[in-house]
């Protein structure tokens, strides 16, 4: 019987002891959870942390002994945004731009049809629209553009669309040669853009006639053809698009051909984003140019094909230019070697 009270006392003592240890450990845990140690000090309060470093600079760099300074880059959070753009936004935006342009042109063709040449008294007679050098500059730039566009699209869509079709090995070879063509044909393309700027700048200065042309929707709506000089407002837009986009693509492209020469990793990412976005807009715009110069308008291709266009067509679409040419030709000395008198 004496053992029962003793056991009971022992049990109470053990319970009190356990509760006391538990209470003290809880208060200790609260202290350390706040980042404080039992002495009341925070040993990491003075240390440099990631948040502090990112307030100083958008990236964290270390110290290295090799001359490649960019290898010292440790953390660059902007790189994650860049990767998201390249892997998600860019393919979708590119598909939207390119397929959207093709769809719009298809709709335009479906509803408007091919713009046919209007037969008239001058139909069948020819007038020189672009001389040999102008056509050379156009074709050099355009043929390079097509290769650059296809190889550029391969950067975006190749691994997603082409590689599953032809396999990794074949895609590797194709992508390698596409990359070579992209880097090397960029140079004749840049020269071509510069040539076109010099050749056609004077005929592409915007003027009041362009406003009237735009107000009349360029004759695409209705049967009336607004007046135009050598280039109408639509062609001037294409010209300035080629010069503007071509220049931007050249600058950003050169920055990538010579990586890190003038900018750091953030600049390189920015250059690629600009290059890619302008590139897809450029492709969409040129698709419209190709359409109207070939399928969309009867007689338009001859301007860059043989260089000579139908005089009747020229009088309808570029009446002011025809008048100017006829005035020049009438005086004799300005007649070009291969130029056919329009009258």
């Amino acid at each position, binding site marked *: 019987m004496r053992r029962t009270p003793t056991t009971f006392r022992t049990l109470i003592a053990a319970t009190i002891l356990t509760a006391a240890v538990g209470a003290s450990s809880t208060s200790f845990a609260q202290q350390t959870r706040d980042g404080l140690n039992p002495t009341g000090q925070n040993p990491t309060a003075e240390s440099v942390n990631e948040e502090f470093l990112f307030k100083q600079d958008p990236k964290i760099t270390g110290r290295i*002994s*090799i*001359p*490649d300074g960019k*290898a010292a880059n440790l953390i660059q959070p902007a790189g994650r945004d860049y990767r998201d753009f390249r892997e998600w936004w860019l393919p979708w935006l590119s598909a939207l731009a390119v397929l959207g342009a093709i769809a719009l042109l298809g709709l335009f063709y479906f509803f408007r049809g091919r713009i046919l040449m209007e037969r008239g008294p001058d139909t069948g007679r020819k007038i020189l629209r672009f001389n*040999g*050098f102008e*056509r*050379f*500059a*156009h*074709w*050099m730039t355009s*043929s*390079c553009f097509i290769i650059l566009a296809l190889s550029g699209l391969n950067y975006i869509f190749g691994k997603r669309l082409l590689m599953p079709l032809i396999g990794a090995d074949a895609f590797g070879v194709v992508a390698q040669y596409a990359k*070579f*063509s992209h*880097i*090397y*044909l*960029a*140079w*004749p393309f840049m*020269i*071509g853009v510069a040539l076109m700027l010099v050749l056609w700048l004077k005929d592409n200065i915007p003027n009041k006639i362009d406003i009237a042309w735009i107000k009349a929707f360029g004759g695409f709506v209705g049967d009336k053809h607004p007046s135009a000089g050598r280039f109408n407002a639509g062609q001037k837009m294409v010209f300035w698009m080629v010069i503007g986009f071509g220049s931007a693509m050249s600058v950003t492209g050169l920055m990538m*051909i010579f990586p890190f020469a003038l900018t750091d990793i953030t600049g390189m990412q920015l250059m690629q984003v600009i290059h890619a976005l302008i590139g897809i807009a450029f492709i969409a715009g040129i698709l419209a140019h190709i359409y109207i110069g070939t399928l969309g308008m009867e007689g338009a291709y001859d301007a860059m*094909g043989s*260089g000579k266009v139908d005089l009747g067509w020229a009088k309808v679409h570029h009446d002011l230019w025809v008048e100017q040419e006829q005035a020049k030709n009438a005086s004799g000395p300005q007649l070009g070697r291969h130029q056919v008198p329009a009258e």
Partner: protein
Amino acid sequence: MKAFIIALVVAVALGTLAAALLNQQQRFAYQAFSTSGARVSDPAGHSNLVGPHWNGVTPDPDKPSKS
């Protein structure tokens, strides 16, 4: 057609010229970013860490060198 063919030929010629010039400027990373210090790898196969006459046998540190 003549202008088109000439344009293609000139484009390829300029591209080839660009390739030749760019490749002249191009250096391998181990050349562009190497220091004057010792290198542990031998990407070019022309030299190695212990000199051109190394016979591939690791010298025993306990034995005195012949040279």
